[in-house]
């Protein structure tokens, strides 16, 4: 049984790579180094959002406010930079705000017991609204060169964005696999009652997961703006969708308790390359969203159907 699951995962990876190789050979310019680097850089943002979403999906939650946080924290950082605050502290403040929004979400969901999708939906609208307030509906640009450098420079031929993403991938993997909190995150997704009976502070686990989610979303937004040298108030909206899609494709179950950080990052790469291919084929982003929305429904539908079948056969009579 274990071997079959093992093979299934890697089979999936190989299959996807095969599809890309085949598809890519039909698209001119797809396999150039420049293009691959570009896509990797862009996917890094998606990947960080996917990591954020993975954390909350494992505990059977969701974050529908990722887009808002991405815009809001980047706005705060950018505005501070434009008023003379040095880049590094400005970024830190932006990240701190993201963390706080995440903690707020966690408290709303665990202590006040507001369903995750509503809590994050509303806080997402609040952050989006505030982002619009700060920029008065417009985007801001003209941040310091060092900020732009973070988003665009290469070290050893690989974008800094990607290094940062990899660092956070490692951090997240370590948290999930090697810390008590990580174990409890999986446990919570598996059986909340059992975890409670073992005396684990379930509320704290939830707040932790959502707090990190907010932090990561802020990071993603800040990196994105560094790359574009602009902060668009609505820059986060597509990433909202892609974060869910990447996690779901990466095997995170909507029913909780399952998911691996690197698989979600891989899912983000898939989405990134997919969008790139579609772009090059001249397919408008709106239609790409259609495809990705459909993909989410199909993947989730299959996993829910399978899980329900499992539960049916487990019944005694």
């Amino acid at each position, binding site marked *: 049984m274990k071997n079959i699951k093992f093979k299934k995962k890697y089979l999936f990876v190989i299959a996807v790579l095969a599809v890309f190789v085949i598809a890519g050979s039909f698209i001119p310019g797809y396999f150039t180094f420049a293009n691959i680097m570009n896509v990797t850089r862009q996917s890094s943002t998606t990947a960080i959002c996917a990591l954020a979403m993975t954390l909350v999906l494992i505990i059977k939650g969701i974050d529908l406010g990722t887009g808002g946080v991405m815009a809001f924290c980047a706005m705060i950082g950018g505005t501070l930079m434009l008023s003379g605050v040095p880049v590094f502290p400005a970024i830190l403040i932006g990240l701190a705000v993201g963390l706080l929004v995440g903690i707020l979400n966690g408290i709303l969901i665990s202590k006040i017991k507001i*369903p995750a999708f509503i809590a994050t939906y509303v806080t997402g609208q*609040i952050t989006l609204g505030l982002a619009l*307030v700060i920029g008065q*509906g417009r985007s801001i640009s003209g941040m310091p060169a060092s900020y732009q450098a973070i988003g665009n420079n290469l070290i050893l031929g690989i974008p800094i964005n990607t290094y940062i993403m990899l660092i956070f991938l490692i951090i997240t993997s370590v948290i999930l696999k090697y810390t008590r909190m990580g174990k409890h995150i999986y446990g919570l997704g598996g059986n909340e009652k059992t975890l409670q009976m073992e005396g684990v502070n379930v509320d704290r686990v939830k707040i932790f997961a959502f707090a990190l989610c907010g932090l990561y979303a802020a990071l993603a937004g800040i990196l994105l703006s560094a790359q574009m040298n602009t902060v668009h108030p609505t820059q986060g909206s597509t990433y909202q969708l892609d974060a869910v899609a990447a996690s779901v494709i990466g095997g995170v179950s909507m029913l909780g308790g399952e998911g691996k950080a690197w698989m979600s990052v891989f899912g983000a790469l898939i989405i990134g390359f997919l969008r790139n291919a579609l772009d090059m084929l001249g397919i*408008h982003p*709106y239609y790409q*969203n259609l495809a990705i*929305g459909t993909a*989410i429904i199909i993947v989730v539908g299959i996993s*829910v159907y399978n899980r329900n079948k499992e539960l049916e056969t487990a019944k005694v009579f």
Partner: protein
Amino acid sequence: MLAFNQKAEEVKQKKRIRDFIKNYGNVVIFLFIWLAGMIFVKNFATLSNNLGILSQAAIPAISCLGMTFVLMTGGIDLSVGYTLGFCSYMFGLFAYKMGIPVIAALLLTMVIGALCGLLNGLLVQIVKIPAFIVTLGTGYIIFGIAQIISNGSAITNLSDSILAIGRAQFLGLPSMVYIAIVVVIVAWFILHKSTFGRSLTSVGLNVAASKLSGIKTGFVTVGAYVICGICSSLAAVLMAARVNNCVPTMGGSEFTFRVITAAILGGASLSGGVGTAWGSVLGVLTIYSIENCLGLLGVNYYMYTALLSIIILIAIIFENLKNRILQ
């Protein structure tokens, strides 16, 4: 003996307060906002201002009624804004580009709305995917399809007869308000006087008991989403008629947010089974009154979008805490 009587009285009083808040919480919130507006905001309590609020609230109210039906099944529809845009374009397509008579075009558009709702309902009921994921995805799907059909263009020359309906006024109120009132009455009737409405509240409160009582729970759930889709299509046609613009980007996520929060403020419970037609109306009026106040106070447009969201969050927190404290 005395102490026992005292305790019994206390419990009775607490219960009365609890029931009052449960049944009339939305009225309390609305009155609170209205009184606050009257006291603190100049020009709020004038007749013309309030008529203006009614006019603004009319079209979203129609969509909010549909959302209430969905919320009562314990679900949610995040795609209403996109359904609205899609239907507005389709109406323009039918009425203008294809030259179909207005009434037929309206009916066809409502069919489109129903189909969008049907898609959502079937995915939620049969495949059993959580509603927020389904409607998150279908939102993009519907928008994408709308874009494909419209090819990025808008339709802006609706016939005069349609525009006339859009601009007609009667007793100082636009026709929209009267149409909305009719829809509210129909919704009220379905919700409170029909067996469908009774089945809906049953399913929302206890699916297992409903099933065993012979209630067609699948039909009811899917039906709620279909109704929501139809409401959005109706709102779409009215909005298109008013602004003479049929484009997929009409409505969108902002509209969706207003409708959902209006329904929640109006008393619809997120866990299902609770909701009223007039409650939804109150919810919409509350939201547009807040907007109006903020506008009159000269609050910057973007600021009040943010403030509105914050107020809504506070209201939801209040609603959830109230349920927990009073248990």
